[in-house]
């Protein structure tokens, strides 16, 4: 006599295919069946609560799941639940969190920002976005500009001044830089001489006699803008010719002295007009303040 309760032989479901193909029956627990019914009930409830079924060009929106958000331009929208609306609502909440800092920033001076690590961290992260959206098209993502076209903001040379006030003025109202073309105004000989002089200012091993002649040409024609000492004048945006930075002439890319001569000659002969657009009206005062602080920090400021 055995008290064995387990099934000694496995039963089949009673179905039979092709005469002899049968299916074992290992009964499932009943709660498993109830769990399966529960998922069906869940699905039916879901149909009513969330957007589900397409009907023609429309679809069911669900009931009791309204979501309200305010867009960036102040419109309040109420709609049925959907992930896009959820995203816009989250953006609205993010804007509210930003507003706390932006309010603080509107009142803060540049010195205040530098003293407050939390505020300067906010300025940096906000500035990266603003810079990428508005400035990077010309000045490049990292602010290194394009030689000959758009100034490099990372070096320590500031054509229009590197103080907070100067930079803010540059961004707000824009700048127009104009190097006139000297071809036809000066003889080929004179241009060659002044090129030697300009290169000598940067310590290049040039022809001393030609450079001396070039100095006279420079004083008579170029010093008006670049100054007697050739250090440039920030109210004109004229370049400092005595340092190692070249803002238009592609000297850094030249490998030989003749290459450098040629690069400077190009600029003297053809001139260069460059325009920094005004951002007043396009960016808010606070946004300009953020960018000013960022650009000042990039190049170390003055």
């Amino acid at each position, binding site marked *: *006599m*055995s*008290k*064995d*309760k*387990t*099934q000694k032989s496995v*039963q*089949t*479901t*009673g179905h039979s295919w092709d005469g002899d193909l049968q299916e074992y*029956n290992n*009964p*499932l*627990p*009943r*709660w*498993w*069946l109830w769990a399966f019914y529960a998922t069906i009930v869940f699905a039916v409830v879901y149909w009513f609560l969330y957007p589900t079924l397409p009907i023609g060009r429309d679809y069911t929106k669900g009931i009791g799941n309204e979501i309200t958000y305010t867009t960036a331009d102040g419109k309040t929208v109420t709609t049925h639940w959907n992930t896009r609306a959820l995203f816009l609502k989250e953006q609205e909440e993010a804007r509210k969190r930003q507003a706390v800092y932006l309010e603080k920033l509107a009142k803060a001076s540049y010195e205040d920002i530098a003293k407050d690590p939390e505020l300067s961290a906010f300025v940096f992260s906000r500035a990266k976005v603003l810079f990428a959206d508005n400035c990077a098209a010309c000045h*490049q*993502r*990292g*602010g*290194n500009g394009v030689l000959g076209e758009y100034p*490099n903001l*990372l*070096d*320590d*040379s500031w054509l229009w001044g590197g103080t907070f006030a100067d930079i803010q003025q540059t961004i707000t109202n824009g700048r127009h830089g104009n190097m006139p073309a000297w071809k036809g105004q000066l003889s080929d000989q004179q241009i060659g001489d002044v090129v030697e002089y300009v290169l000598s200012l940067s*310590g290049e*091993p040039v022809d001393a006699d030609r450079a001396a002649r070039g100095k006279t040409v420079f004083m008579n024609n170029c010093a008006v803008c670049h100054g007697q000492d050739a250090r440039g004048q920030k109210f004109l945006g004229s370049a*400092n010719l005595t*340092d*190692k*930075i070249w803002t238009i002439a592609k000297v*850094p*890319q*030249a*490998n030989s002295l003749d290459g450098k001569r040629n690069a400077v000659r190009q600029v003297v002969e053809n001139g260069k007009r460059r325009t920094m657009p005004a951002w007043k009206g396009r960016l808010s005062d606070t946004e300009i303040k953020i960018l000013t602080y960022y650009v000042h920090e990039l190049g*170390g400021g003055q």
Partner: protein
Amino acid sequence: MTQPQYQARIPVYPRSVKGRFRTLKTAILILAYAVYFLLPWLRWSRENAPDQAVLFDLVGRKFYVFDLVVYAQDIFWLAGLLVIFALLLFFVTGLAGRVWCGYFCFQTLWTDLYMFVERWIQGDRNARMKLHKAPWGPNKILRLGATWLAWLLIALATGVSFVLYWGDAPVLLRQMLAGEAPFAAYATAGFLTLTTYVMAGLAREQVCTYMCPYARFQGVMFDENTLIVAYDEKRGEREKGRQKPRKGLMKREERIAQGVGDCIDCGYCFQVCPVGIDIRDGLQYQCISCALCIDACDTIMDSIGYPRGLVRYTSENALEGKPTRLLNLKNLGYGVALAITIGALVWSVTHRADVELAVYQIRQPLAVILSDGRVQNRYRIKVNNKTEQRLTYRLGLEGLEPSAELDAGRFRQFTLEPEQMLPLQVKVRRDPRFVHQVRESFAFVLEPVGREDAPEVRHASQFYTPPAQVRGGQPDAE
């Protein structure tokens, strides 16, 4: 008659038993509960964090395990730990079968505790069976109600204790009682209360048979040498099978002489079984190797004076009279893999730098030429103090000419609070006349200030000079 395609659970009413394995299991249970419920309350002196020995601080992204602070970037240790657990499970299963299931699994431990409570309030197997069949009345309501309430309290304590690992236990518990704790704390505690109650109180052995993936795949790690709980069929059945003891079949010698097995068919072994199987049917996938049937059978064998071991830990080979060989390729392989993983994790934990320095060169652009002709590179630096001390460091350069300039703004020298991470942006400027190659290696060095015992830290980096600017070794070099 065909059986139904769905069937209700056949209730299991395990009977109590005393014996070696029951004692061992109770000891493990007490130890496990002591650790689980008391560990969050163990205090540990810390400077910048709650004084809790084991604390998983998700908000601060730090795990505190006694003197070890685990940071988010050490998360691969968790992967190592999981690999170790998996290998350990395979290794032990290969050698000794379902030891985890029988002695250590939470499902086994909590079900065991719930059964203790059940037995204490409702009585042993027969009393419980009678109570469940009885019509509803004051006695049944009182006893079942008290059991369910006790289960619920245990489940609640389990859920709340789990939550306490993730915050400062005394503070968090006070917050939870006052209704001020974060929603996640209540949700987690509530969810675990529910699952504990359902799994240990209602589902029980069904968790092992229907839900647990390990229970289903552990069979592939078994072989004929693996230690299993088994019924010695040869001895128990002999030629004429098991027989109840009656006149002429009382003594063992009489049974052997008549070819009757040693099993007296008392049924104690399946009455104590928590998963409701009969071990005499052989190795079954439902068996969690809890060994309570061994205790049951040994108790009976002792009382009738037969030798113990009719149900015992053995292997399939041993049952067939062949030698059991545990030193096979599979077990050795698991063992070696386990040892290597443990070694690697221990090495990694003991050799972690206490102060970490990470340097990223800024690549937009790589280099800028300054007005005095020098070349500037910029770097983003992160210094992470993983110690519990306040450390002062001075940032320096190594491997560059003395004229190379390091501009770290206001942070050339800085003090790190315990566990503080400081991000810095620094600039390095070099005269191109000292530069010989487009890319030159150097290192940032953190030198401790004011403390001899603080570690010096360095991180290698590169300085980039545009090819046209490389002047080293040229005639105008000074």
